């Protein structure tokens, strides 16, 4: 897919993210498309990990995230990267989306989706890994939203701590505490599961 768009009369460029947002703020739909193409894989992966639920929910949240970005493009304050900013929006949109669903619905959605099997491993190893993936998935879904966001942003999306903190509008110390608590809670859940016959 070509990333070239005409942003300004006579100027063809491979725009960086900030230029794309500036163009979005001007109402340039091509810029919105390019922003979407460029970042939707990361946002989709993030939302999927945060929500752990049905694909249509994930897609809806992803689309709403870009719609919010389009509407707020002018307000982007460049305190973080555009990617981190989008992740912050996605975190908020997914929280709001999630609130409407009951715990049971989430649980059923969890059961309905099976992860893609990992790469070529020994069958026993693969089974152990698959079980671990399932337990981590269940563990993540039990975390409070803020901790889940911290874990996925820092640990899985590998955003630097300060950037993750800026993305969701908290201090770095708070983000660290959330990450640590998420790690701790997951560890305790895994430990508890191991003790379950």
């Amino acid at each position, binding site marked *: 897919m070509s990333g070239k768009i005409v942003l300004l009369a006579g100027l063809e460029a491979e725009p960086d993210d900030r230029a794309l947002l500036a163009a979005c703020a001007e109402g340039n739909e091509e810029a919105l498309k390019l922003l979407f193409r460029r970042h939707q894989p990361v946002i989709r992966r993030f939302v999927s990990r945060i929500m752990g639920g049905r694909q249509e929910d994930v897609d809806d949240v992803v689309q709403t995230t870009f719609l919010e970005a389009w509407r707020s493009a002018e307000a982007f304050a460049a305190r973080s990267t555009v990617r981190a900013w989008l992740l912050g929006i996605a975190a908020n949109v997914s929280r709001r989306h999630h609130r409407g669903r009951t715990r049971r619905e989430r649980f059923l959605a969890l059961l309905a989706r099976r992860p*893609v099997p990992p790469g070529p491993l020994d069958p026993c190893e693969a089974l152990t890994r698959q079980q671990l993936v399932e337990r981590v998935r269940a563990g993540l879904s039990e975390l409070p939203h803020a901790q889940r966001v911290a874990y996925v942003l820092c640990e899985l999306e590998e*955003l630097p701590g300060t950037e993750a903190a800026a993305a969701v509008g908290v201090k770095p110390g708070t983000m*660290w505490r959330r990450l*640590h608590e998420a790690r701790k809670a997951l560890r305790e859940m895994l430990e508890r599961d191991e003790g379950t016959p």
Partner: protein
Amino acid sequence: MTCPDFDLISRLRGHVGFDGLLDAAQRAALEAHVGGCSRCSKELRLLEAQKDAASALRPEASDDLSLRRAETELVARAREPLEPRRWGSGRVAMVATAAAFAMILAVLGRASLEEEPGALRLGHVEAEHGVRMALDAEGPQEWVRLSSGRILVEVQHLEPGQRFGVSTTDAEVEVRGTRFEVEAERGMLRAVRVEEGRVEVRWQDEAPVLLVPGERWSLEGLNPAAERAFRTAFADLEDGRAREAAKGFARASGLAPAGAASEDARYWRGVALARAGLRQPAVEAFGRYLSLHGEAPRAPEVHVFLGKLLLDGGRVRAAAEHFEVALTLGDAELRPKAEVGLQEARRREARREPGDF
């Protein structure tokens, strides 16, 4: 060196962008210990395995066709003032009135101003210049989705089943016959001020806060209503009315969740709940304090409080972890208390009292 608790293991593993989790001496001592300790090495490996397993959680791949479809749909939604798929196909209208205000329905400020006085049945909205928002009406529900700027809302008496509110990406403000002002930035709620009636603010995971005329909810900064609530709660605590105090401190932090007094209020709420004998709510309150203010100067003290409460509740292992953190982070005055607590926790763990975990 005895095995460090999980807090220190987690700090040792750290994360890029978080500095100062350990000083050089602590790091060197921990690395030396972990290098020769199978238990601690296993803890670190478990953290990696946890991350590795979580990394396998990925969405189903999108093919090019569905991607194009999503892109087309996104652009179509961006052109509309509403999000029909999410909010339904209800009637949408905007009301522009006061001369001092300009009402702009914002899809990036590109026109789409639809004036239809009276079509918004339940409420009346005035917006400052530059406000970004969308209105959504479906049946007996009307919502203003505010992205940025300040609006003044007036709502007539609502019949049973009717709802009117303002939402941002992080909060909802719902009313029952009132006049109030709402301000947002980057889709996030910044402030709410009530002129008439009552408004309930539900922000993130905080408990809902009810505002009465003259009161203001603000995310940050000084908030007179929050300060009043704090002072009243503190007086209640001093007079032995611990339960009332706990409610008051909750209200004080709820009125300005990131405000100047919110850390104080959360701390004292934990103290009040503990004094009221409400152990589990106190544990939760202090846990919330640490999740929000884990780097605050009072955090080591809160770890000791939590340790004591958990110990009283028979959760000796969790108690020991908090005492250990307090020992690591606390000052010379706090360390003896943490040491006593830790010894007691270890003594009880060694005895394996029934119900301990």
